């Protein structure tokens, strides 16, 4: 195995995160660009931490999202940066956001369960959009009559909202409190057993 000095290693990790087409994990770094070097986990973690610090005062930041590390622009700059695009960012309806929130907090969940909580039917269009965006996927079938499909959120969903895990969801605490207070309701307990997502 070749050796590489720390300065070069840092440059390589930095450039790799920048040019990779998706967020890249430490393991993926080790399997690809760092493949031929002997890099201890501790060294790699130190480098990533250093890079995160280096970029703190800059216009872009190194963040960890669900599927790995990526650089992204500083949130505060969005009012001006959005001028680089002619089109406005897509807006999502309340129905879509409520459905997505329910899937995120109560996964795995069936369409029937979503409708029960929201008190209205969930349009097929919403499920289609969520699936097409790669935010939601079918993860199985509930073993009840009709074997309805069970939905869960994906890493792509977390990446899109710049979250590294489901527990980082903004209202995660409120949902947990509700679950704790309603021990009697078995459907709520599912939240705690949410799969960590593939």
């Amino acid at each position: 195995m070749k050796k590489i000095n720390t300065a070069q290693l840092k440059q390589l990790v930095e450039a790799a995160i920048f040019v990779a087409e998706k967020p890249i994990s430490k393991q993926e770094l080790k399997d690809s660009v760092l493949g031929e070097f002997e890099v201890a986990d501790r060294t790699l973690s130190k480098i990533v931490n250093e890079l995160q610090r280096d970029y703190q005062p800059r216009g872009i930041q190194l963040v960890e999202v669900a599927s790995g590390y990526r650089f992204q622009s500083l949130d505060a700059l969005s009012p001006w940066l959005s001028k680089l695009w002619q089109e406005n960012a897509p807006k999502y309806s309340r129905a879509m956001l409520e459905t997505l929130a329910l899937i995120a907090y109560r996964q795995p969940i069936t369409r029937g369960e979503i409708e029960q909580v929201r008190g209205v039917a969930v349009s097929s269009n919403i499920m289609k959009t969520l699936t097409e965006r790669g935010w939601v996927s079918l993860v199985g079938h509930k073993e009840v009559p009709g074997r309805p499909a069970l939905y869960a959120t994906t890493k792509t969903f977390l990446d899109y909202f710049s979250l590294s895990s489901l527990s980082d969801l903004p209202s995660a605490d409120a949902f947990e409190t509700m679950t704790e207070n309603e021990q009697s309701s078995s459907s709520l307990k599912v939240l705690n057993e949410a799969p960590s997502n593939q």
Partner: protein
Amino acid sequence: MSNEASTPAPIQQPLPLAFVNGEALIEKPEDLFIPPDALEVILDTFEGPLDLLLYLIRKQKFDITTLPIAVVTKQYMEYVDAMMALKLELAAEYLLMAAILAEIKSRLLLPKRSDESDDEGDPRAELIRRLREYELVKNAAEDLDAQPRLERDLFIPNVALSESIAPVRVDPSVSLAEIVLAFSGAMKRAAAFEHHTIEREALSTRERMSYILSIVTKDQFTPLEALFTLEEGKSGVVVSFLALLELVKEQLIFCIQAGPYARIHVKLGSHEED
């Protein structure tokens, strides 16, 4: 639940949050009057009966846990009537909720028997639970919408690749065994026309033939000595010589000697071409 009570209602007017516990303290529902134009817009924005109920409760600053069912039911029915009058697409869910409200109201009107245990419960309990749960989802959706996200708040850098980057193509690995087996396979199939066996000597002669062909050129004469490597010893010289003879025989190269004992030169190609 304290957490619930402190959650600000999103459609609330910007007034100080003051809970009025009990119907006696409630102002008359004057704000129920909405200009008809606005009403259509407002009704259209409800995400269903729970959303509408929640709106009514929050608007009146009722405490969700002490749900004043009579007032809420009355107001709810007024909205449903308005929806019907405006011929808005009225989902069955709204009518179902109206039935639920009416049922709760009638059960509350029945005289309470003293021997009834508390476990029997408040008929409003289930509705209150659903309202709280829905409110949680509604707030979660709003929080999710406020969460910085790609395309709107966060942008991913586009860093160009230096020109020297080319995708690495990993060639398949081949083992020597595969080559040998492929050769013997091909030879077996060709056995009908081919009979000779491969010998080590022949092989090295063939290799030397390739080597000589790669050295000599068409345009220049190469001295014969350059084709021999003395370090290889006698056998090496013999192999080179055999290779040369074979190449001459196949007319791949030709040798030329200016006179007796003069240097022999080798050139690629045939005599006919000159």
